[in-house]
């Protein structure tokens, strides 16, 4: 009986509690859902803008990585990371229609943008190039992995930017939809070049214009395509009117020059050579150029501690150029802004800031070990000229290799003609070039010597350069018949190849609407 009453009482209470609980739960749920719906919309709206901004910067980071790695002095330069299978060697133009991809799989699926059925296809290529009869990207295209997929960054397991690929290619008038030379023809097969001011169809106008197109996509599906046009900007160098430019001033004791006396094979020639050493037939330049009229006599006949061009017999044969023999001329057209210590030193500083490498100071052995490593690793080669700087003296005595590119020495350059140099040699700073050795080497390109700093290394104040000196017979006690080597030969081809660049300039930016 007691048990039965207890059961019935329980049952009654259970019913009411359940009903009320269900109702309350229902009402609270409705209110909660309404609130969630309202705040959910707000969150997703704010999220939309956030992901649009995030994907924009992700795409931009791809462009910047590619732009940075096009520069040879970048430690992750394509030239260093993908020496053989990616872009053509420096100085060689990209062909129209060829595509190169920087890819960033970041642990995900393989990225093959040239395949239209792949996860992240490059559909933009067709938009730009089908009218030029290039229907699809190169299949398969050469690829390079992004820095996020290479060590040391990969080992850190950092979440890299979410761009997927960056296409690098040449552009034409037709692909850009412009008529650069206003000839009413949109050329589809000629790549565009940049002459420093405008685009041009002529390869000789300047460096090639490259197009970088970056594609980024976020996990939520937001995607963005952005595009750069870039071209390397050269550092402004003084003009090379002569094979050897010896700069001095009318105020200070000016230049001095000493030829290697017994060596009748030593020449300083203003006759232009191509990069293979053959005469180009272009109008000859000056053999030795100076910028003060009285220095012409000093170089020819000696003075200021120099012996001049000796023996007298070689004056008629070994110093040829645009003028009468020996061709030592006052370069009247040499720009005034490069005739002052500050003007020339600014050039040297710009080169130092943008150098591909700095030759360590120290013993000749230390310096030459550094240079030899560049040669043996092919980092420095005819197709890959380098801009090298010696902040101070450089002693090449005993170095038996050939260097390529631009060599800037701010102290004394001690040359050894067992070595050769193809390109530009600048001795700007102390302005002293010495040689006491014999050999069969030569300098092809141009040499410029100027004193912009005093012996303590401070910039000379005022507008007058100090006294620069070239002495190919700095140890007169030792005078073998091949002292000084073959000499200095003007080559516009090598001067152009050795031009240093300050970076890739952004010529234009464009966001592609999708």
């Amino acid at each position, binding site marked *: *009986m007691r048990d*039965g*009453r207890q059961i*019935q*009482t329980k049952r*009654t209470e259970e019913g*009411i509690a359940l*009903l*009320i609980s269900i*109702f*309350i739960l229902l*009402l*609270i749920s*409705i*209110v909660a859902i*309404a*609130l969630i*719906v*309202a705040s959910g*919309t*707000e969150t997703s*709206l704010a999220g*939309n*803008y956030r992901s*649009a901004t995030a994907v*924009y910067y992700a795409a931009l980071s791809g462009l910047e990585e590619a732009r940075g790695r096009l520069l040879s002095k970048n430690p992750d330069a394509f030239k260093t990371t993908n020496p053989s299978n990616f872009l053509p060697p420096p100085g060689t133009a990209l062909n129209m229609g060829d595509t190169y991809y920087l890819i960033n799989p970041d642990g995900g699926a393989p990225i093959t943008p040239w395949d239209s059925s792949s996860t992240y296809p490059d559909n933009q290529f067709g*938009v*730009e190039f089908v*009218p030029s009869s290039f229907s699809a990207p190169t299949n398969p295209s050469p690829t390079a992995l992004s820095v996020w997929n290479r060590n040391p960054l990969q080992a850190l397991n950092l979440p890299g930017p979410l761009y997927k690929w960056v296409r690098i290619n040449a552009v034409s*008038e*037709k692909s*850009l*939809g*412009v*008529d*650069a*030379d*206003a000839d009413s023809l*949109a050329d589809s097969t000629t790549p565009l070049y*940049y002459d420093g*001011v*405008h*685009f*041009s169809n002529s390869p000789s106008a300047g460096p090639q214009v490259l197009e970088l197109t970056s594609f980024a996509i976020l996990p939520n599906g937001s995607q963005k395509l952005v595009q750069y046009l870039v071209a390397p900007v050269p550092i402004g160098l003084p003009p090379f009117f002569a094979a050897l430019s010896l700069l001095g001033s009318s105020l200070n004791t000016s230049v001095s020059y000493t030829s290697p006396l017994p060596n009748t094979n030593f020449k300083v020639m203003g006759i232009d050579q191509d990069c293979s050493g053959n005469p180009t037939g272009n109008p000859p330049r000056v053999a030795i150029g100076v910028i003060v009229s009285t220095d012409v006599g000093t170089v020819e006949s000696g003075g200021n501690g120099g012996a001049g061009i000796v023996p007298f017999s070689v004056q008629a044969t070994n110093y040829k150029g645009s003028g009468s023999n020996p061709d030592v001329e006052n370069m009247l057209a040499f720009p005034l802004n490069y005739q002052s210590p500050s003007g020339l030193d600014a050039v040297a500083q710009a080169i130092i800031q943008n150098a591909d490498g700095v030759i360590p100071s120290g013993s000749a052995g230390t310096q030459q070990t550094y240079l030899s490593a560049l040669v043996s690793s092919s980092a420095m080669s005819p197709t890959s000229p380098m801009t090298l700087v010696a902040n101070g003296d450089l002693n090449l005595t005993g170095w038996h290799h050939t260097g390529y590119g631009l060599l800037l020495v701010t102290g004394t350059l001690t040359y050894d003609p067992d070595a050769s140099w193809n390109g530009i040699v600048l001795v700007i700073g102390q302005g002293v070039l010495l040689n006491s050795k014999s050999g069969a080497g030569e300098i092809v390109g141009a040499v410029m010597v100027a004193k912009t700093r005093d012996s303590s290394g401070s910039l000379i104040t005022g507008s007058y350069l100090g006294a620069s000196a070239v002495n190919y017979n700095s140890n007169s006690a030792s005078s073998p018949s091949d002292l000084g080597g073959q000499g200095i030969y003007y080559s516009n081809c090598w001067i152009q190849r050795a031009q240093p660049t300050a970076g890739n*300039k*952004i*010529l*234009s*930016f*464009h*966001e592609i*609407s999708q």
Partner: protein
Amino acid sequence: MSSGPSDRRQVGFTLIELMVALGIFLLITGAAFTLLGTSQKHYQTESQVLTSFQEARLGLDQIVRDVNDAGYPPPTFLNSSSPTLSVSSPFAWSPSYPTTSCQIATGGGGNCTTATAGDTAPGDFDLIIETNPNPQDPSCLPNCPVQWIRYQLQNTTPLPTLMRGVSNKFTGGDPDAYTAGALVPFVQNIVNTQVVQTVTNPLVAQYQAAYPVIFPGGAPVPIFSYTCDNSFPPPQTVACSGAGADNSPANIRDVIITLIVAAPLPDRTTGQARLVMLNGRGRRINPNK
């Protein structure tokens, strides 16, 4: 046996039990429905605010994209004088464009003007972008013209509207005059300023007084503010007003955008206006010459 009938009587509820249960139930449901009613009012207001917010977000997105793209294609593209096919300046101005430049001054002032009284372009509430948004448009290849894209705040009833207008660039033309006829409503209910082109909007004046946090000191908030590239010394990006000789539309680097939008109707619970403030930044990457 005797416990049988007494057991049966206890099956079901007594009237008192029912009344108490019903009373409690009504009390709870009453409270719940009041809560539901309030939240429904909130929901209606919020969805209005969200609509305005969404419209402004889309607008902001478009402005940022146009600014990012300003100056495409730069004059380097063409080795000839075809000013309609390349950009003379990423941001156009008036008058004497592009021969003589003008000074930008946020908060009024400066000598970039427009034909409309009390308006400057580029200015706090007016901006003309010069770009080619779709250079691959098959209908105009190979020589797609550059366009002037204009954003201008105009006074409308009940609240001001940000207008957008697009016109093809016309050599020798005044970008102000060419875009003025093409303006269409873009983002509505903008309350950044009560004085729009010398006309005072009374409703915005009320809002500005009610929200001192959004409008410090009751001052208007510029929709567009600018930073300029300063060439000397050393090269840096500063507010245009501090850029000295480099304060010109051609040197604009960033456009910082602030949109303050109001919901079309006041809050149903408080009767107050609901304002939303959105910020964005567009950065010109193209060279200016």
